[in-house]
């Protein structure tokens, strides 16, 4: 089976309070030098058939209509080699 990964991130202009909370915790734990943290979502989709252009087009449509809310989020679709 082939795996397609959809990464969803809040758009840069949308406040990410979860990412900020993580960033504030990092120096306390001794991890210095990290200027910013943004937290996103990763979807791993296992396909039944081949990963052809038609399958990718359907996944892009799913990402755009459902997995991401494009009002506030950006997404990327990529095939993961196994």
């Amino acid at each position, binding site marked *: 089976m082939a795996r397609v990964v959809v990464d969803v991130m809040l758009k840069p202009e949308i406040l990410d*309070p*979860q990412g900020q909370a993580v960033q504030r915790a990092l120096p306390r734990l001794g991890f210095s030098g990290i200027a910013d943290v943004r937290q996103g979502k990763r979807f791993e989709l296992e396909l039944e058939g081949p990963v052809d252009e038609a399958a990718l087009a359907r996944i892009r449509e799913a990402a755009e209509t*459902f997995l991401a*809310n494009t009002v506030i989020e950006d997404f990327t679709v990529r095939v993961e080699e196994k």
Partner: protein
Amino acid sequence: MTARIGVVTFPGSLDDRDAQRAVRLAGAEPVALWHRDKDLHQVDAVVLPGGFSYGDYLRCGAISRFSPVMDTVIEQAKSGLPVLGICNGFQVLCESHLLPGALTRNDSLHFVCRDQRLRIENTDTAWTSAYVPNAEITVPLKNGEGRFVADERTLDQLEAEGRVVARYLDVNPNGSYRDIAGISNAAGNVVGLMPHPEHAIEPLTGPGTEGLGFFASILKQLVSA
């Protein structure tokens, strides 16, 4: 004839019975609608209640937006059916693109539960006509993802067209842009509101009865229509 107002129950809805009770106290007949049913059973208006539809997995309201009942609600809302979305219902309306913008995690990261003062800034909508312009009311608010966001152009458009229905007073509980607590679509039949007017309809169980105006408004509109 009594106005029939549908209240949709999704898996995880928890304020559906409160909304039904508010409808009844306002003088209308509440009709329980199930999310799997495409039929709206000839209701005159629909309330999408608060709660945590489908556990709010993925994003709040994202999965319920694809419930069969929503196909019909979306279609009929576009041709004028009055729809009020409260809290999770507001999120469902944004996910359905019946209203612009989105609701995101509170800037404090805390779940907020408080009695919230609001100003009702637009009394021309189907759901706010019973209020006097700029009425200040107190209703409960309870949300973890109630922060209204939209791009600047959308915010400017909402303000210019008078579509900011309610604004937070005293405290902005969740970091909503421009203190926005509720908005409407261009036609004014679809309203989304983050605080809970259905919890302020009886003095025994709420901070007062100032939330009843939302339900009295729709009744007034339906009776005069």
